[in-house]
């Protein structure tokens, strides 16, 4: 007695052009983009015809498509089961998946669990019901009593006087402040270095807990780069997912009542994120209680607001004198030793 005649195997889309072309064609049929960041595709073929594909980019499953000639539950179940095994063999046990809300039910049947959903736009799922719950339980152990509990998420790429001012001001307004450093290693300065600089820079603040970031907060999972054809929607949908995770899971676990953020004079992405914060943390009706968003005006040096992007520009120009005014000593030392471009 033989197995179903579809055979599944994995391909490297960057090495196998024929397979890549077929996958791109199938994705296009399903109104999905071929994403270059996908390292591995699981593909299913019958009699040489590509019937299904699913991509893996880090621990994010994307580019999942089944041929319209084949669509039926059993094919996607086989595909996603195969993907689970492939990912586990690579040591990637914790998987995330972005999809449209109307696909949520289908992926629930494939072992994924809904984390957050923005009506008619997008949904984020993970492959375990224990994932976010384990994370929230570990956060809850660090919970502090108080009326006003603050939360800040910084990338600190790198840590500047601007961050220091924001954190100190927020701490002075709260009973306790929970500070998170974005964990995703996709920035100019490595996560290790960014975390160490923040740690050094917030020394002496008595009512503060410094947390490592997680995949549930400003990560590649909560902010996928390109998912939908209509690129304009990307920002909208994904800030919402990220903020809903904070509001519905992270804030309740720690009892966070206020989220602090610096005003953003330069970067449109960050400015949009600040604006979205007010909607998704405060206004939008959802499960978690509303969180008050507090915007703190950016500190300025010589009349110019301090920002990390400005610091990176000055670093590229090797302008140490200007940098000295914008970053604490520890940041300056690290930048000089490790990140300064050669003259």
């Amino acid at each position, binding site marked *: 007695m033989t197995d179903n005649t579809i055979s599944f195997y994995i391909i490297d889309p960057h090495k196998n052009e024929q397979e890549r072309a077929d996958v791109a064609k199938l994705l296009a049929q399903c109104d999905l983009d071929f994403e270059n960041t996908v390292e591995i595709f699981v593909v299913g073929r019958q009699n040489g015809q590509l019937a299904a594909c699913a991509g893996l980019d880090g621990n994010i499953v994307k580019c999942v498509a089944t041929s319209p000639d084949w669509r039926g539950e*059993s094919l996607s*179940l*086989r595909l*996603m*089961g*195969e993907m*689970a*095994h492939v990912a*586990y063999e690579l040591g990637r*046990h914790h998987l995330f998946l972005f999809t449209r809300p109307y696909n949520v039910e289908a992926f629930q*049947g*494939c*072992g994924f669990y809904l984390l957050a959903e923005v009506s008619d736009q997008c949904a984020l799922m993970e*492959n*375990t*019901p*224990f994932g976010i719950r*384990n994370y929230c*339980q*570990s956060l809850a152990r660090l919970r502090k009593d108080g009326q006003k509990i603050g939360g800040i998420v910084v990338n600190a790429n790198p840590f500047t006087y601007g961050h220091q001012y924001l954190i100190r001001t927020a701490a002075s307004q709260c009973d306790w402040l929970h500070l998170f450093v974005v964990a995703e290693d996709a920035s100019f300065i490595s996560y290790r270095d960014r975390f160490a600089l923040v740690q050094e820079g917030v020394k002496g603040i008595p009512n503060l807990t410094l947390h490592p970031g997680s995949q549930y907060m400003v990560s590649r999972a909560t902010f996928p780069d390109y998912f939908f054809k209509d690129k304009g929607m990307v920002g909208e949908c994904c800030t919402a997912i990220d903020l809903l995770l904070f509001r519905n899971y992270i804030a309740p676990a720690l009892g966070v009542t206020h989220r602090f953020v610096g005003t953003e004079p330069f970067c449109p992405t960050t400015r949009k994120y600040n604006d979205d914060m007010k909607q998704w943390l405060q206004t939008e009706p959802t499960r978690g209680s509303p969180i008050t968003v507090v915007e703190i005006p950016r500190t300025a040096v010589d009349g110019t607001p301090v920002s990390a992007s400005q610091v990176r520009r000055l670093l590229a120009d090797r302008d140490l004198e200007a940098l000295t005014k914008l970053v604490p000593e520890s940041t300056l030392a690290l930048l000089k030793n490790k990140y300064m471009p050669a003259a």
Partner: protein
Amino acid sequence: MKIVKEALAGTLESSDLLVKVAPSPTDTLEVMVQSEVIRQFGEQINKVVRETLEKMGVTAGQILVDDKGALDCAIRARLQAAVLRGADCNKIEWSRLS
């Protein structure tokens, strides 16, 4: 038997099940069963899962069962395979598996 790493066994195909096991961060045993037939057979599936784990001496771990209408014998087999993989165990005690 102690689960020391994440492991997976089975498939999502009809009459099968996918089992994921992981070490427990709190050293407790947590079992979650999802099934298309949970209303009719949820109790029975849970019973088979608990008995199988008990027999293998699994007292801690996060066990996730995604059932697609599998027979009891398939549930036992997949669960045992996932636990043995997650326990990184090469020595099989057959009496604990039957």
